[in-house]
């Protein structure tokens, strides 16, 4: 049933695919976290126009499929004579999508910071950016680590959508091997295990990080 030879022979291709997958994940996460943080900061703005723009962005990004967002960037940018490699297109689309979710994670965290600390910062002459950077976000990031872990796992799984625009990541490599060998079970089982390994590493890493932060806080 399981063709071990096929799996062993496919390993170099699957490894290459895994590296592309990791590349997409790293770039997307590197876009999602800072952009999400910026959105969450701007969301606290008293400007009605700014809040409205942020609201529309978050609503659209969260309310439409990542696949459509990938297509949107992949097919519309060339119409404006902008050419980007498919791997980068997928990374940007997944990163933008993630930023909307990250902003909501951080928004809940910001709302949980006691108002008294924000008032204290104001009376001590700290401006809003220093207050955010040095007082609010460090606390929010600590409490948001489990949610960031979940977001990273989502990005790992969403990265498989890059195959639709021809990116040779893990799913695409598997798809090619499957169409060449007609052995769907062995190859799909292999990539499922690779995805599972990646997401398990993230879950475990987040768990350890969380425990360390709790120990540090307790000491």
């Amino acid at each position: 049933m399981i063709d071990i030879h096929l799996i062993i022979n496919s390993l170099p291709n699957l490894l290459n695919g895994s590296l592309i997958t990791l590349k997409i994940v790293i770039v997307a996460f590197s876009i999602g976290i800072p952009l999400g943080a910026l959105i969450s900061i701007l969301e606290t703005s008293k400007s009605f126009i700014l809040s409205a723009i942020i609201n529309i962005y978050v609503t659209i990004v969260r309310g439409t499929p990542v696949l459509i967002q990938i297509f949107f960037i992949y097919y519309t940018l060339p119409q404006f004579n902008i050419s980007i490699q498919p791997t980068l297109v997928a990374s940007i689309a997944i990163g933008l999508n993630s930023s909307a979710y990250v902003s909501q994670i951080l928004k809940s965290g910001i709302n949980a910071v006691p108002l008294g600390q924000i008032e204290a910062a104001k009376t001590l002459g700290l401006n809003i950016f220093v207050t955010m950077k040095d007082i609010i976000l460090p606390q929010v990031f600590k409490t948001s680590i489990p949610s960031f872990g979940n977001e990273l796992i989502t990005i790992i799984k969403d990265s498989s959508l890059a195959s639709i625009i021809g990116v040779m990541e893990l799913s695409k490599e598997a798809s090619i091997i499957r169409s060449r060998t007609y052995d769907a079970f062995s190859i799909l089982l292999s990539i499922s295990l690779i995805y599972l390994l990646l997401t398990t590493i993230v879950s475990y890493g987040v768990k350890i990080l969380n425990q360390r932060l709790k120990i540090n806080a307790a000491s």
Partner: protein
Amino acid sequence: MLQVKCLTKSFKNKKVLKNISFEIKKGQIAIFLGDSGVGKSTLLRILNDLETYEKGYFYLDNMPLNLKKINNDHTIGIVFQHFNLFDFLPTYKNITLPLIKSQKKTKAEAISIANNLLKKYNLLQEQNILAGKLSGGQKQRLALARTLALNPQIICLDEPTSALDPKLTLQTANDIKQVAAKNRIIIISTHDISLVKHLNAQLFLMQDGKIVETSDTKNYFLNPESNPLIHQFFSDFK
């Protein structure tokens, strides 16, 4: 001298401060007494630009005081009732952060100021402990040290002894006296008679958003009946 004139503040349709006026000289301690909800904390919050107000005029040494700027130029500082420390930061960083980020001191200058204050307030051993892990009395002293580090001319203390035992109340009173002795204006909101007894201060009794009686601690404690409303207020709290 701090002069506040015709200060009026409402929350929705309820007037919490009704045209109040008062003066406090440098080196003086002013204590605002009154039940919860009479507007004492609101007054302190307005002075620290944490609340807006409908009407009011503010002067320091006969010069108009722009409350929108007082946090940036550190004219006024406040020690909050619940301290509002940055619990996740080590004790010393609660003091150095505003010095570095707001007063643009170098790290070495900020640490030197922090060390002096931590030593003065007996917190040097706790300097690396997270502020959230300090005891109530230690938090109170750290909150005062954090405010003093910025060297404000006016210091507001909102219910400074509400969470402290009698021994710590006496210590806080001594700390307040020392701070006032440096020609600063101290404004306290409290209903703790044990704190009032330890201080040489101006008393302002507030009721229903107005200052209804004024005195000073020396005269009041010599002859409490001469200030019937303040006397009644303290009697109610005994």
